[in-house]
C-alpha cells in the first residue's frame, strides 16, 4: 500500500498546478487575487513538506501575503481611484495591445513545448555534484550562528543578501519616483469589534515578528520573515488609516529605507582588517555583528515593504507641474 502521505503530496501538487491555471484564467480580478493568495499558501505548505520551513515562512509572508496585498491595492486603485475599471467593475480587463487568438495559441503551444523539455531535462537530471551541505556543515561552527539557512544568508553568501537588500532599496526609490501624492481619503469604519481586535493583534504581530528575528539564529526565521511580519503591522496601520504618511515624514522614511543596506555594507567593509577580507566577520564577534545586521535589515525590510504597499512618495502634487520637490 502506498503511503497516504504520498497521496497528500500528489494532491497538494495537483492543487498547486490547478490553482496556477485557475488564477490565470478566472475572469474576475478579485477572484484572481484570492486564488493567487491561496496558491501562495499551498506552495508554502509544499515547501514545508520539502523540509524548508524558512522558505515556507518567507513565501507565506512575502510571496503570498505582501504580494497579495500589493495586487489588491493596485486592483483597488484601478477600480475605485483611477476608475479605469469603473464601468466594468466586476470583470475588469485592462487591454494591452489586442493579441490575435492564433498568436496566443502559438505562444501557448510554444510554452508547452518548453515546459515539456524542461520536465524531460528534470526527470533525466542525475544529481552529479554533492551539493553544499557537507561544506556548510563543516563551516557552520565558524559562522557565528546555529541555523544553517541564517548562516548561508548572513555569512557564507552575505554578499548576495546585501545585494538583495539593495534590490529592495532600488524598488522603493523607483516606486517613489513613479508616484507621489498625499491621500486625503476618509478612513474605513470597521466597528468596535475591530478596534478591540486591533489592540490585541498589532502588539501580537510585533511580538511574533521580533520573535522570528531573534529565533533566526538557531531555528527557522530571520530578518526577512521577521521584517515581513512587522510589515504586516504597517500594512494594517495604512489600511485602516491609523497612520497616514506625510511629507514631513520623508526624512525618517528615507533613513529607515537605507538603514539596513548602509549598516550591512559598512560592517562588511569595516571588518576587512588584519588580514581579513570584506564580509569576513571576526569569529568572536560574528554572532553580535550578524544580529546587528539582521536587526537593522529587519527594520528596513518592514518599513520598505510597508512603503511599497503605500506605493508613493508622500508629496503634495501640484497641478500640471511635473517637477516639484
Amino acid at each position: 500500500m502506498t503511503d497516504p502521505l504520498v497521496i497528500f503530496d500528489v494532491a497538494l501538487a495537483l492543487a498547486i498546478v490547478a490553482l496556477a491555471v485557475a488564477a490565470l484564467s478566472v475572469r474576475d480580478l478579485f477572484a484572481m487575487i484570492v486564488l493567487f493568495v491561496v496558491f501562495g499558501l499551498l506552495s508554502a505548505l509544499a515547501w514545508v513538506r520539502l523540509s524548508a520551513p524558512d522558505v515556507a515562512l518567507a513565501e507565506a509572508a512575502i510571496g503570498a501575503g505582501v504580494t497579495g496585498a500589493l495586487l489588491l491595492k493596485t486592483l483597488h486603485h484601478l477600480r475605485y481611484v483611477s476608475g479605469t475599471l469603473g464601468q466594468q467593475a466586476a470583470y475588469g480587463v485592462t487591454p494591452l495591445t489586442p493579441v490575435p487568438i492564433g498568436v496566443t495559441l502559438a505562444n501557448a503551444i510554444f510554452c508547452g513545448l518548453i515546459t515539456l523539455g524542461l520536465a524531460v531535462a528534470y526527470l533525466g537530471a542525475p544529481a552529479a555534484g554533492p551539493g553544499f551541505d557537507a561544506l556548510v556543515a563543516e563551516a557552520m561552527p565558524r559562522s557565528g550562528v546555529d541555523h544553517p539557512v541564517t548562516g548561508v544568508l548572513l555569512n557564507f553568501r552575505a554578499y548576495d543578501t546585501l545585494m538583495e537588500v539593495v534590490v529592495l532599496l532600488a524598488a522603493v526609490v523607483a516606486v517613489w519616483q513613479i508616484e507621489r501624492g498625499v491621500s486625503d481619503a476618509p478612513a474605513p469604519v470597521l466597528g468596535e469589534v475591530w478596534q478591540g481586535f486591533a489592540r490585541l493583534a498589532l502588539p501580537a504581530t510585533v511580538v511574533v515578528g521580533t520573535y522570528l528575528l531573534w529565533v533566526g539564529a538557531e531555528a527557522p526565521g530571520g530578518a526577512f520573515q521577521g521584517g515581513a511580519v512587522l510589515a504586516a503591522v504597517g500594512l494594517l496601520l495604512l489600511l485602516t488609516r491609523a497612520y497616514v504618511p506625510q511629507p514631513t515624514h520623508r526624512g525618517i522614511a528615507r533613513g529607515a529605507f537605507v538603514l539596513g543596506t548602509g549598516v550591512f555594507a559598512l560592517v562588511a567593509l569595516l571588518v576587512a582588517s588584519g588580514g581579513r577580507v570584506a564580509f569576513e566577520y571576526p569569529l568572536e564577534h560574528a554572532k553580535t555583528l550578524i544580529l546587528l545586521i539582521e536587526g537593522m535589515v529587519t527594520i528596513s525590510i518592514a518599513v520598505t515593504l510597508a512603503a511599497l504597499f503605500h506605493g508613493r512618495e508622500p508629496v503634495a502634487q501640484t497641478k500640471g507641474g511635473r517637477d516639484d520637490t
Partner: protein
Amino acid sequence: MTPDLIYGLCGVAVFGIGLVGALCAQDRLRRVLALKLCSVGAGFLLVVGAWRTPPATPDPVPHALVITGIVVMVSATAVALALIRRLQSLEADDER
C-alpha cells in the same frame, strides 16, 4: 514517487503556466501575477534540488537562495504595480 519528484514536476509545470501567462495574458495585472508564478516555479526547482541527501537534512544554500528570490520578486512586483497604477491614472485623465 518521492516528494522531490512530485514537487519538482509541479514546479516545472507552474513555471510553464507562468510562462504562458506572461506571454499571452492581456491584462496588465495578470501578467505581473504570471511572472510571480514563474518565480515560484523556479523556487520549487531549487528547493527540490536541496534534497540530495536523505530528507532530514536538506542543503540549506538553495533555501537561502529561494528566500532571496522571493524578496527580489516582491520588489520587482511592487515597481511593476506602481507603474501600472501611474499609467492607469494618466490614461484615466486622458479619457475625462
